[in-house]
């Protein structure tokens, strides 16, 4: 499998189909995997693929330093690929100027990451080619079980929970920077005319920030779980993203990054949208 992957990449570079491969590297067999950028055919042996390949590499596609390297080929798992679809819908990438190498994925992490247990995109669907195969079967659902459990708490209990979680947020913005869909040139939290969100890492500022972050991903978040993985304080941001993912699915029959043809739910509407809560 890994040989096949390296073959493909070598070919792409040799035939000058692409200028750079965005893939995974590893400094030691048992060490963690990390993103690497391969520009020469002789370097492709640095590429690895295993269950330590957490990172969603699509986040690099919107970065100027990486764009400057020329036409990229990118290695994506099924879940990462959903982000690719959203980036395409939002005209952040030109699919023609991008070579997508899908990897059939059994799941990452040992034990498996939460997202993998409910994964229903083990095989990339829109890749230019898919490498390897997996025996994993796509989950039928269960995406929102954790959320459902959480919502059994009373509103007051939820608020208390979040205050504890958010008290640890230092606003390092790792959640924002790893997110492939947080590609704004200037994040609203970095703006001060006016200051919409306090920059202070106080409960007030942290709550406002996480509300904005989650809401701006409404109908866009593909649950790749990177924000959760990146958070040094282990804050369970997934609950917020899942809330909106579930809302999108329940109210608008929409799942981000699944069907490129569907109109995104923000910036569109239906006359049938429910409104019993409106006075």
């Amino acid at each position, binding site marked *: 499998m890994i040989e096949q992957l390296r073959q493909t990449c070598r070919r792409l570079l040799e035939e000058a189909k692409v200028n750079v491969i965005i893939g995974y590297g590893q400094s030691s067999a048992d*060490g963690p995997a*990390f993103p690497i*950028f391969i520009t020469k055919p002789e370097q492709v042996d640095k590429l690895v693929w295993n269950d330590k390949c957490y990172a969603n590499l699509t986040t*690099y596609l919107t970065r100027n*330093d990486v764009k400057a390297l020329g036409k990229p080929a990118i290695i994506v798992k099924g879940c990462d690929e959903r982000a690719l679809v959203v980036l395409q819908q939002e005209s952040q990438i030109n699919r023609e100027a991008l070579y997508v190498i899908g990897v059939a994925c059994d799941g990452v992490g040992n034990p498996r990451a939460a997202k993998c247990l409910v994964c229903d995109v083990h095989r990339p669907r829109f890749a230019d080619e898919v490498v390897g195969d997996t025996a994993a079967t796509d989950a039928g659902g269960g995406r929102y079980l954790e959320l459902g459990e959480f919502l059994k708490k009373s509103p007051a209990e939820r608020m208390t929970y979040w205050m504890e979680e958010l008290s640890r947020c230092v606003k*390092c913005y790792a959640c924002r920077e790893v997110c492939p869909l947080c590609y704004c040139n*200037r994040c609203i939290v970095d703006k001060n005319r006016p200051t919409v969100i306090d920059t202070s890492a106080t409960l007030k500022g942290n709550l406002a920030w996480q509300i904005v972050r989650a809401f701006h991903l409404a109908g866009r978040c593909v649950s790749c779980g990177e924000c959760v*993985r990146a958070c040094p304080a282990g804050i369970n941001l997934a609950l917020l993203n899942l809330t909106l993912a579930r809302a999108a699915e329940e109210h608008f029959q929409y799942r981000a990054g699944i069907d490129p043809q569907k109109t995104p739910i923000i910036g569109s509407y239906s006359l049938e949208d429910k409104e019993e809560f409106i006075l």
Partner: protein
Amino acid sequence: MSEVITRKNLQDLVNAWISRGNTAAGPVFVKPDVCMYEKLSSGERLALDSFVHPTNSIKEFYFPRHEKIYTYRFKGQKLELDDCEPARTPQLILGARPCDAAAIAILDRVFNWDYKDKFFNLRREATTIVTLGCAEYDDNCFCTSVGLGPTAEKGSDAILLPLNDGEFEVRCLTDKGKALFAGKTQTSSQEAKPLSGPENRVDIELIVAQLEKNFEDPAWREIALRCLGCGACAYTCPTCHCFDIVDEGNAAGGARVKNWDSCQFPMFTMHASGHNPRSTQGQRQRQRIQHKFRIYREKFGETLCTGCGNCTRNCPVELGVLNTLLSLREHALRSSSEVRG
């Protein structure tokens, strides 16, 4: 002979301390898999083993992420200001890693070289730091490379060395330390075995030389490619101490506050004109390393890094100082060999 204290007595010590109206902090498992330095509600929450390093650092307690400098109020057309005083409540940090404790000593310099930072100093005075020698280390630790180690005493008021059966040898290093443990320890015959730290992973002197002689190292662009530009490294670093100053409030009044900031953010150097002197992540990474290993040394004779490895541990893309230094060396060797070859 040595002074020894049991885990139980340590916990009681903390509880007694808190009951006197003081505050205490130390490693706590906030989630089964996440250990962080947190304010302690009781000694029982204190974690003393089965972690290498908390995901944050103790700087939070003497250089908080958010601090009011002064408050302001509009009185009609006029503005009234009130200076803010930092809390002087005695504070105990128990179970700090030596690499965290060392940082406070290093930061003394920058907070006192010309302007004496009242906020830092008062908190520092009010703080007693009891470190916990490192029984284990991981691939990210490189304290030994920067002249520290698992039992380094720099910045500590006392140090605890794990003995077997959950007891700790106590070595008091300052009056604060002595005062804290006075009458709390038993003299015992057993002494802690010397603790081993990570082998020397990178030659800092070579790094410094390299940093000095080529500022415009092309390596930076390549190294920084995978850096996402978040502040996880800086904010969990015991020695990073940059801050931003903003006003927050409404038409009635508000406060001028000091918030952590990071040189890894593009906004850090963004000019009002829109021009950014550090426009690429490579330049920003270079700044961070240059500052830690060259600039701070030149100015204060200390390296602004304690090798705690938090930057790598918390980096979403496995970068961090150590890996950056290693790739720097790798590039240096490669290019020199290229020159030779």
